[in-house]
């Protein structure tokens, strides 16, 4: 590049313990340029931004700003230098007006009093510069999501930024709001002296808006090029992970058409939208849910499990369900292990209590006044701990003293112990546990679906952001985007590139 870069990373690296989140990344951003950073969940996009703004320190490598080597220790320092970040979540104070929010932290004052008029005029000037019409004199809580977004961008311009980082700026926007927003960003690039870093995982958006695309995969920079030099396919290809060696899990071939269907879903209305959720799970099948953050996998499960208000009608175990409560779903034989392991356990309680609390209503607290039968609980817990192959010292030890993998085994083990288990839904069960433990969890899952006693086989839905994991364990994969299931793949059709492409483009690939 001929011009001097405003911002330059050279070999930037960030480690968290043994895990390298950002691995020797080079990045250059120039004036009047939109650079997009794309990558799967956990590819290191957010970490990279936090390094730019000084939230994280840089473990290795250098950062240059306007040609000078710099080191930011906190956001105040980076903001002073001219690096402004607009966060994914809204950061406004609801009862204050647009102008008051724009000036927040830097209010013009005279004699100790805030000069509201001056603040309003300053905000108005920014609004004019950006050719916007968002009202600035009413509380921002009365504005829509798109306008609140614009207020935040105006706030970034309050201090004449040189670099503007937009973290998933379209995530909170409605469908009709995205296109005008993108053309607004391009207009900003053309009319202002500014470099823009645009983070997203929606590939079409990036091609519409960027000058240059940077792909991160497992913290590594796998592609950097001008947008006109690359195709969407190339970008998707470089997003593919090299595939960590998991050890293949044996997955027996089954003819699912002849097996009973546990769950059949067509569509449902929730969050004010109709969602196409065309999928089914059979007895003995592991169905994987793949999608990027915010693609609606968890929401779909919450709808099925009675945690999310919805207008729905689906078939579970031969029964049509239109209204449900979590407790009745458990009775019917559906159970979910939550995304955050911490939400599935009582941290300070013992293994016995953690296992047995789910069953107190039934056989463990006898008929009389619901007094818990310790002896029965103990033997029940022992049985589950043994079946799930948990490594522990005593069933009375606190559950939080176990490793993540062992906790997850307990959660799965006790979940499938419910009477009449038909369908187990696992939301990101291997998040944050090491590879060895992951493998054991895969085995535990496959045992549930492939056990020799056919009548004991269950259906499993496995939600994961790790595509390799799903390709390894599942019989079928359903890809989510924008709240809908876009396409389903059977094991014979599994193709990493196709699946990833469906997730980032939100469109079917042709079989």
């Amino acid at each position, binding site marked *: 590049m001929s011009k001097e870069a405003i911002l330059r990373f050279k070999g930037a690296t960030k480690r968290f313990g043994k895990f390298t989140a950002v691995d020797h990344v080079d990045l250059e951003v120039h004036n009047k340029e939109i650079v997009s950073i794309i990558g799967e969940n956990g590819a290191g996009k957010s970490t990279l931004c936090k390094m730019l703004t000084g939230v994280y320190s840089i473990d290795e490598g250098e950062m240059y700003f306007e040609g000078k080597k710099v080191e930011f220790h906190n*956001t*105040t320092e980076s*903001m002073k230098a001219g690096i402004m*970040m607009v*966060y994914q*979540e*809204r*950061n*406004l*104070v*609801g*009862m*204050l007006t647009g102008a*008051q929010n724009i000036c*927040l*932290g*830097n*209010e013009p*004052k005279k004699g*100790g*009093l*805030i000069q509201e008029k001056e603040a309003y005029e300053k905000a108005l000037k920014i609004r004019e510069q950006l050719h*916007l*019409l*968002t*009202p600035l004199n*009413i509380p921002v809580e*009365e*504005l*829509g999501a*798109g*306008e609140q977004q*614009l207020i935040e961008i105006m*706030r970034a311009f309050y201090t004449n930024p040189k670099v503007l980082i937009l973290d998933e700026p379209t995530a909170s926007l409605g469908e*009709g*709001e995205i296109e*005008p*927003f993108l053309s607004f960003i391009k207009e900003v690039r053309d009319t202002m002296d500014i470099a823009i870093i645009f983070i997203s995982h929606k590939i079409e958006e990036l091609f519409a808006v960027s000058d240059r695309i940077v792909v991160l995969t497992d913290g590594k920079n796998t592609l950097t090029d001008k947008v006109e030099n690359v195709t969407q396919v190339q970008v998707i290809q470089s997003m593919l992970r090299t595939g960590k060696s998991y050890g293949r899990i044996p997955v027996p071939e089954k003819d699912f058409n002849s097996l009973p269907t546990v769950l059949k879903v067509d569509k449902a209305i929730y969050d004010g939208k109709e969602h196409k959720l065309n999928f089914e799970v059979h007895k003995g099948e592991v169905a994987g849910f793949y999608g990027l953050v915010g693609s609606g996998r968890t929401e779909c499960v919450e709808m099925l499990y009675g945690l999310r208000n919805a207008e729905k009608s689906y078939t579970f175990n031969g029964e049509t369900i239109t209204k449900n409560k979590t407790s009745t779903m458990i009775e019917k034989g559906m159970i979910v292990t939550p995304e955050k392991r911490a939400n599935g356990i009582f941290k300070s309680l013992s293994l016995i209590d953690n296992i047995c609390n789910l069953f107190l209503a039934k056989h463990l607290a006898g008929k009389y006044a619901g007094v818990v039968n310790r002896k029965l609980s103990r033997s029940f817990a022992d049985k589950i701990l043994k079946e799930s192959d948990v490594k522990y010292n005593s069933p009375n030890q606190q559950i939080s003293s176990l490793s993540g993998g062992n906790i997850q085994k307990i959660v799965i083990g006790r979940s499938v112990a419910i009477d009449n288990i038909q369908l187990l839904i696992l939301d990101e069960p291997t998040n944050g546990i090491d590879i060895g433990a992951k493998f054991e969890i895969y085995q535990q899952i496959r045992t549930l679906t492939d056990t020799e006693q056919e009548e004991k086989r269950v259906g499993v839905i496995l939600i994961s952001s790790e595509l390799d994991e799903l390709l390894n364990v599942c019989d079928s994969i359903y890809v989510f985007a924008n709240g809908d299931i876009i396409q389903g793949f059977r094991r014979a059709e599994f193709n990493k590139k196709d699946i990833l492409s469906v997730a980032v483009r939100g469109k079917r690939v042709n079989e």
Partner: protein
Amino acid sequence: MSRENHIRKNKGLKENAPRFFLLIAFIVITLVFQIMQPNFLNITNVMNLLAHSSIIGILACGNMILMAAGEMSFSVGAQCTVAGALFGWVLAKESSNSILLALVFAMVIAAMIGLVLAFFTVKLKVPTFVCTLAMGTVLDGFTQILTGGSTLHSSNWPPMLTIMQKKIGGVFPLPIIVFLIIAVITHIIYEKTKPGRHLYAVGSNPTAANNVGISVPKVKVWAFAISGTFCGIAGVTAVSYNNSVSLTLGGEYLMPAIAATMLSATFLKLGKYNVPGTVLAAVLMIVIQNGVVNAGYPIYVKDIVQGILLTVAVAIIVLIKEDGLPSVKLEN
């Protein structure tokens, strides 16, 4: 998306009525008492009412600053009493009966109590609820030590001590003036200055505040210190007005002070604590107390009325504001 002018939502009666809930409640309750006892609104009783509500009001203003910053204290009553007791205790000593010295002493300690609370809640992250509840008990104990376990009054007290019993122009008791000054200053700081704006930002969206470079812990520490000082002012004013240190002072003031702050969020700016609302609510609390007693009902009837009023008011806010109040955040 915003290429066309935003049309402000047309607010109907349904949305506007709650903004005057407090005022309507105030007028109705006052009228009921006036009908029950025609002497209720005579000048002597009104001034008496206002003087009493001044002490609650000062306390509530300090409490409002704290609650606006997203914290909540159950020790404001005890803080107020201990400051009053310190003031009386210093003056009771023959060697140190300078009003000024006693005043400064009481204020410094009051502010320091606020800082101690800040240390535990902001620095050590002990839940404010537990911390202030415990602090309240500790301070009540200290008050007992200072007063010898009974109402404190000393013949050593200089005549100046009862200055708050004086009436300006023979009509306005001095506490009203103190209260007015404090209310106006608080209002200006809270609504018009940078620290006030930051206070509110920290209470209603700490993440946003942090992201624009406002130091959330620093703002909270200041809020604790200022609310502590306000407790001190209220305590000293109460001692001066009553010419004694009563042990039950704090207990009597805690609930009305917190209620007054909460109720303020049902006045004018729904969901935002504000000084005019706090002032109105503080007076209302005393109107209820005074009215109940004058009408010959047992004193505990006022607890029932005050409690119901507070519950209804907070329910109104919860129904209207989806995200709740600073310091009373609602999940989901």
